[in-house]
C-alpha cells in the first residue's frame, strides 16, 4: 500500500524526492515553506538531498499529544542536518542506531514510514 505523506507540499513528488524550502527575497533559505502572509515573495526551493549531521538525540519517552506516532511507542532518532549553503533542517533519523552517529557525518534524504498509513521525511547516514 502506498503511504500518504504526513503533510502536503513538505517534499517534492518525484523519483528522487527532496524537501521543499523557501527562498526569501534576501536570498536566505528557510524550511519549511512559510504559510499565510509570511509566504509573500518567498520562492519555493528544492533543498539538497545531501548534508552533514549537525546534532542528534534519541526520543526515549512517549511524547504527549499532538504526537501521533504508532503504538506501542518505540524510541526514535532525530537531529539536525546541515544542507551546505542552504539551511540546517530538523529531521527524523532512520536506518541506524544512536551509536552510529558522529558530528559532521554525511547524511542523505529519504522518505520513511511514519505509521501504518503515513510517511514522513527523514535523513539517514549516506551509504558508502
Amino acid at each position, binding site marked *: 500500500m502506498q503511504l500518504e505523506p*504526513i*503533510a502536503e507540499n*513538505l517534499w517534492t513528488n518525484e523519483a528522487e524526492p527532496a524537501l521543499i*524550502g523557501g527562498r526569501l527575497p534576501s536570498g*536566505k533559505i*528557510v*524550511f*519549511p515553506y512559510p*504559510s499565510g502572509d509570511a509566504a509573500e515573495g518567498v520562492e519555493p526551493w528544492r533543498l539538497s538531498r545531501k548534508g552533514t549531521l*549537525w*546534532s*542528534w*538525540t*534519541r*526520543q*526515549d*519517552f512517549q*511524547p*504527549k*499529544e*499532538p*504526537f*501521533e*506516532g504508532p503504538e506501542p511507542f518505540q524510541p*526514535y532518532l*532525530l*537531529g*539536525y542536518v*546541515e544542507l*551546505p*549553503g*542552504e*539551511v*540546517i*533542517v*530538523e*529531521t*527524523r533519523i532512520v536506518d541506524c542506531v*544512536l551509536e552510529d552517529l558522529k*558530528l559532521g557525518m554525511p547524511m542523505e534524504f529519504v522518505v520513511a514510514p*511514519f505509521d501504518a498509513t503515513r510517511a*514522513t521525511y527523514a535523513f539517514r547516514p549516506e551509504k558508502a
Partner: protein
Amino acid sequence: MEDVYIIGAGIHPFGRTDGRSGRDQGVFAVRQAMADAGIEWTDVGCAYGGSAAAGSADIMVNELGLTGLPFINVANGCATGGSALASARNAIAAGEFDVALAVGFDKHPRGAFNAKPRDYGLPEWYGQTGMMLTTQFFALKIQRYMQLYGISRETLGRVAEKAFRNGVHADHAWRRSPVDLETILNSPMVNDPLTKYMFCAPAEGAVALILASGKKVRELGADAVKIASVAVRTRPPGSFEVFAPSVDIENGGKPTILASKAAFEQAGIGPEDISVAQLQDTESGAEIMHMAENGFCKDGDQEQWLREGRTEVTGTLPVNTDGGCLACGEPIGASGLRQVYENTVQLRGRGGGRQVPNNPKAAYSHVYGAPGLSGVCILER
C-alpha cells in the same frame, strides 16, 4: 534614573502543594515579602505579576485588599517574572511610586510540557511527528556543544549532583536529598545525552519581591539590596532556539549573550566582579552552556571548572546555590524571580547552610525560555 532596591522577599515552597492554587501560593509569597519588608498592603503603590498556567495575578486584590492600586498582569512566558521585575523597577525609577510589588507564581500538570504547534506559528506535522519537545532542544544543543568543546557526560552529572547537594540546604527547594553521581548518570535516559536526574520538572511555587525607592529604604531602615540592572532580550537572527524546524547556516548571536552584555553595561561591572550566580538550568547542559554565554568562562572551560568544584557554594563562582531549577522544579511564572529571591538571601547573608562565604557583594541571575528570550538581573549590596 533613581536607584531602586529590594526590601522584601517572599517565597512559597516549590514542588507540589495539592489543594492550594497557584495564585494562593502567590498571595502567600506576597504576605511573606511584606512582613519581611515591614510594610502593609496599603503601602504598595503598584504591582506587576503573572503566571504561565495558573491565571491572572491582578485578582489577588480580593485576598490582599481593595486599595485601588494599579495591578498589571504580565504574560511573557518564561520571562514573566523578569518582565514583572523590570516593570516594577521602572515604575519606581520613574519616580511615580515609592513601593512596588513584583510577583510570579505557577502550577503545572505533571510531565513534560506539551506545546501546540499553532500556538507557536508552526505546522501540525512538526508536533505530529514528535519533533516539538523542549527536552529535545536542550539535548540537541548540548550534544553539539559537547562534541565541539569536549564536555563529558560526567560533567553533566556533576552539575546535577551539585544542584541536589545545594537543595538540601534550601527550605524552598523541592528535591532536598543528595543524589550521587553514579545514580544520576545511570538513571533512565530522557533524550541522549540527558538522563532523568539531569532534567528539572514542571512544578508549582511562587515568589514575591517588594521594591522601593532610596527614600523609602531610609524611611524604613530596610535591609535592602540594590537592583544594579535588569535586562530582558529576545533572540537575534541566526540563533538556535527551542521549537525550530530549521536553523540559519550563519551562526548568529544568542538572546542570553545580548541580555548579559546589556545588564553588565547598565551595572557598570563585569563577570569578574560577580560573587554568586543563578543561571537557567532547565537541565545540566543548560547550566554549562549558560556559564559561557553569560561571560563567566570560555567555551570548554566548564569541564575543568566542574572537576575543580569552582561552582560549588565555597568555590570561586558559586552557581545555583539553592539547587536551581534542578532541585526546585520550574513553575514558569515564578522561576526567574526565585533566582532573584535567592540572590537577595545571599547578599543579606541569610543563606544558612548554603550561604556563600565572605559577604558576597554582587549577585547575578539569568533566566532563559521559549521562544528564545533571556532575562538578566544584577543585584548589589
